[in-house]
């Protein structure tokens, strides 16, 4: 392992170091803000190192092969950067979430710091997954994400101020995800084993070189890839492997939901792009057809499921199923540089928007939780109007908290793919990709899905502008969210609008890869 190789995996090293430091720090000195600081510093350093590594990649060495296991290139670094930024946002959301739920001075003394360790671990897994060029690292990365996600999903259990209902739901989501994810991992492993038995190699380049010698239609190989794809489809919650998504999203602490919806999917997409490209799986029509079918099913089923949903977290879960379906449309022509660009752009759009939506939901719920703690609000909501996760709660929000509602409206419009937002440019990419690949059936799916999607996005949006039973002008019904949360929303909304109106900025960044 040369110095250059070590340099190449600098982001991973920094993350690992951060984890170790945080572990030590926590064992000596418990402190919520301190943990947050270490986490954010680690993330920032890792991001910086990404730029640094990218800077050294210029010219002849467009990628660094780190032993046989990892490969560092521009695309991977870009993904890494995006995911680290996401993690940054999630750590802020997490801070606001945990602040209200964990009371170290309480009777049982619940501590929030482990959440950050788990977050960094998940990020380490995600980055490993993106850099992986070998099934061992793929498996390692994937499992790192999953293993740290299980406790994160169930993290409400440790907060002794969390409402009882929230704890139970959190537990339920963790167990559900654990069992299903374990099965999917097993299936994926089985697939890898089949690929290995067909090709005799575990590194992607090796497999690629072997399968050209093998007959293309080796059943063993194809079955292996299919099983692996199923496992990945599970992580992406593509139909028909989507069924866990709403339950897990709903039950999990909102920052974790955001994590699973963004990093969990982004890393897998990043890996999938590399995997398909190296193995040249784009030439396999069967796989593409399979993906297309899954994509169409996802677009339709996801949006149909969301149609009458009143719980916002479930609604976003269903909508994310649809969105991954759109993403796959771009992914199918991912072989061309344009396809890659489209996938990345859509992913960035998806991440910004999803993050923003969950941030809004999480922060609104936190503000309610704060009131509960002060005794101003009933702990167990009697009606939907009092439940911050229900649509009815958002009634007339625009008149109560215009800025918050404005941000949420921007997120929703972006999800619906309306111009001036990044979601529109993303959808434009999908359409362009679809036209370029002449995939008319898929495009029809996108159109129908979008039309269905409009209904529930708009219904939510218009709920926020309802004028009946709006409290008086003196902002009694205003939702007060934390300053850090406001800042986060502001940044996300700005990014959403800037990249929506001047997409060239982001395109340039992507194409600088």
């Amino acid at each position: 392992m040369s110095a250059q190789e070590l340099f190449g995996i600098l982001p991973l090293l920094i993350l690992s170091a951060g984890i170790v430091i945080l572990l030590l720090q926590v064992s000596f000195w418990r402190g919520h803000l301190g943990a947050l600081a270490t986490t954010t510093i680690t993330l920032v350093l890792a991001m910086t190192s990404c730029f640094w590594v990218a800077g050294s990649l210029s010219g002849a060495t467009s990628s660094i092969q780190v032993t046989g296991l990892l490969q560092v290139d521009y695309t991977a670094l870009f993904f890494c950067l995006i995911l680290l930024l996401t993690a940054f946002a999630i750590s802020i959301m997490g801070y606001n979430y945990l602040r209200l739920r964990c009371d170290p001075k309480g009777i049982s003394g619940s501590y929030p710091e482990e959440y950050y360790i788990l977050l960094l671990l998940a990020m380490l897994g995600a980055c490993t997954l993106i850099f992986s060029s070998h099934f061992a690292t793929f498996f390692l990365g994937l499992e790192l994400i999953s293993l740290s996600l299980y406790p994160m999903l169930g993290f409400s259990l440790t907060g002794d101020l969390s409402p009882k209902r929230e704890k139970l739901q959190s537990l339920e989501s963790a167990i559900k995800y654990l069992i299903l994810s374990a099965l999917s991992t097993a299936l994926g492993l089985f697939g890898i084993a089949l690929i290995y038995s067909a090709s005799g190699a575990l590194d992607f380049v090796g497999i690629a070189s072997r399968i050209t010698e093998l007959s293309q239609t080796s059943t063993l190989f194809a079955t292996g890839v299919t099983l692996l794809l199923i496992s990945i489809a599970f992580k992406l919650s593509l139909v028909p492997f989507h069924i866990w998504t709403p339950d897990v999203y709903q039950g999990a602490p909102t920052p974790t939901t955001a994590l699973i919806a963004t990093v969990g999917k982004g890393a897998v997409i990043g890996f999938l792009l590399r995997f398909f490209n190296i193995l040249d799986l784009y030439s396999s029509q069967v796989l593409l057809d399979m993906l297309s079918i899954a994509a169409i099913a996802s677009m339709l089923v996801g949006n149909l499921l969301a149609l009458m949903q009143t719980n916002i977290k479930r609604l976003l879960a269903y909508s994310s199923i649809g969105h991954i379906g759109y993403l796959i449309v771009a992914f199918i022509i991912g072989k061309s540089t344009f396809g890659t660009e489209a996938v990345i752009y859509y992913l960035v759009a998806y991440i910004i928007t999803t993050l923003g939506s969950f941030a809004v939901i999480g922060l609104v719920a936190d503000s309610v939780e704060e009131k509960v703690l002060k005794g101003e609000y009933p702990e167990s909501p009697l009606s939907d109007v009092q439940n911050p996760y229900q649509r009815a709660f958002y009634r007339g929000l625009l008149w109560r908290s215009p800025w918050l509602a404005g941000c949420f409206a921007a997120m929703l419009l972006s999800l619906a793919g309306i111009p001036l937002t990044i979601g529109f440019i993303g959808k434009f990419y999908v359409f362009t990709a679809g036209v370029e690949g002449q995939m008319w059936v898929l495009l029809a799916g996108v159109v129908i899905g979008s039309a269905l999607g409009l209904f529930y996005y708009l219904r939510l949006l218009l709920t926020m502008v309802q004028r009946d039973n709006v409290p008086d002008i003196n902002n009694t019904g205003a939702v007060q969210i934390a300053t850090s949360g406001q800042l986060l929303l502001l940044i996300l909304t700005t990014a959403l609008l800037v990249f929506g109106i001047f997409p060239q900025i982001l395109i340039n960044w992507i194409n600088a890869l």
Partner: protein
Amino acid sequence: MQGLLAWVPLLPLIGFLILVAIPLFHRSEPPQKFVACIGVGSVGLAALLTMIVAFTLFWKTPSELVNISLWQWMLVDNLQVGFNFHIDWLTIVMLLIITGVGFLIHLYSVGYMRDDMDFRRYFAYLNLFVCAMLILVLADNLVLLYLGWEGVGLCSYLLIGFWYKEPANGTAAQKAFIVTRIGDTAMAIGLFLLFYEFSTLNIQQLISVIDGQEVNTEIITLACLLLLGGAVGKSAQLPLQTWLPDAMAGPTPVSALIHAATMVTAGVYLIARMHPLYMLSEVAMNAVAFVGATTLLISGFSAIAQSDIKRVLAYSTISQIGYMFLALGVGAWSGAIFHLMTHAFFKALLFLSAGSVILSLHHEQNIFSMGGLYRKIPLTFICFTIGCACLAALPFTSGFYSKDHILLSAWEYHQGVNILWLAGILGALVTGVYSFRLLFLVFLGKEGTASTHCKDANTPVMSIPLCILAALALFGGLLAPPLQAVFGVRPDEDHSAWIEGVAIAMPLIGLAIAWRLFLHEQKSGEQRSPLMQFWFSGWGFDWLYGHLLVRPFKYLSQINHNDIIDSLYKGTAAVSRQMNALLSASQNGQVRWYLTSFAVGSILFLALLVAL
């Protein structure tokens, strides 16, 4: 000098605008005198102007055409429509009738409408009508003519429904507008056809185009029939005659001006104006003649059965216009116009007299409650008698000359006894019957229930027009309009005396029948024999159209008033909701079910792998 004619339609328009704009500057209603000055004065000035121009033109060579170009209206591709007036003797005759009779009726209205709240609105509408009617006859192209055509239709609508508080009036007004619109639509299609074929809608150009070349007779026939559709609608001829009797809901002077003297004869004018076109098509000519002949008989018989004084006159108007159509159909162009003119005089006279009767009887219109009025309102009686005499074409009245002309032309046209002529003759008999029936029932005989309250309502502003019109009706026959330049000269033929004799005899027989039947009829207007009931209802046309067109249309639009197409989308939405419910049921929260779905999904994918 002729350029002044452009002012003729403009003056009533200015009057209209002033009357309409008053509320913008003035909170309360202006005094009646002011309104009357504007309303009557503008038309009076227009009449004066027309007479001066006509007088000067009379001494010039008759063939001289005058065009007045105001501005280019539409110029798109080869569609060239100018806002231009074309003036020949036909126009001038029409102008004289419209402004002259119009002025008299305006004047009469000042008296008739003196107690009405909406005095100003009335004169505004009336002025607008005169303007539109003038544009109709002045237009040098069919589009501008159509403008006037629709304009008079609108004013007719407004004036029929003038007393808007009574819903029946509104219904009558709507009926009038919509029925004529059906005709107008046919006419519009006719215009499209003409433009398609000849690339121009200018009347003179059209005429010169068809003069010069071989033309497709079928197209011409079709175009003529479509134009006839418009004429039929506006002139209340079969099959679109049903609106006119109902149109009597308007104030009586309106009926005199619009539904007797001017607007309803626009169809006659149109066909006369387009006569070179019609002459090319035998079919169209026959159609016009038969429409006229049938109408004049049907409505003549209907007039016999009516009990409302104005409805009698309305049916008689339809019948008289039928005569004009008959004349047009047999090529007696100038005869038609001549009858148009005399009809304008005597029918206006009749309506205005009827108006006096109605006003004197406090808006009683049922002739069976009248009777014996000759003593109470003698001037009206005299005028009405003159009118009836003209209508029935008693010898030496103006009606006699014009109707005689028509009957002779019908005779000539087929060189002998023919169905058209017979219809005309029979019509003359019927005319005699119903006109004198009316006279006897209203003015002679026993006093009816309403007659007892009779109080002469004539004021000088009403009497003077009545007298002038009476004079015109009596002596108008001497004023044969100089239309040779327009229609060409027809050689006079000698007719055997018996034809003339029949023509003279028929009205007299009618008079006798009326004398015999109606002078001492019991006042039992309510009980009618089935035949009379059939005639009373206008030969059941209203019933027929009601069941054939109106009701099905209303039914169709009512059952579809929620828009059946929308249910398509509502259905889609419902299906989506159903599928949502179905899919939501799959999210049942059971881990083992989730595991099963995962397994099934995997198997599906593997099956896909095998299948693809």
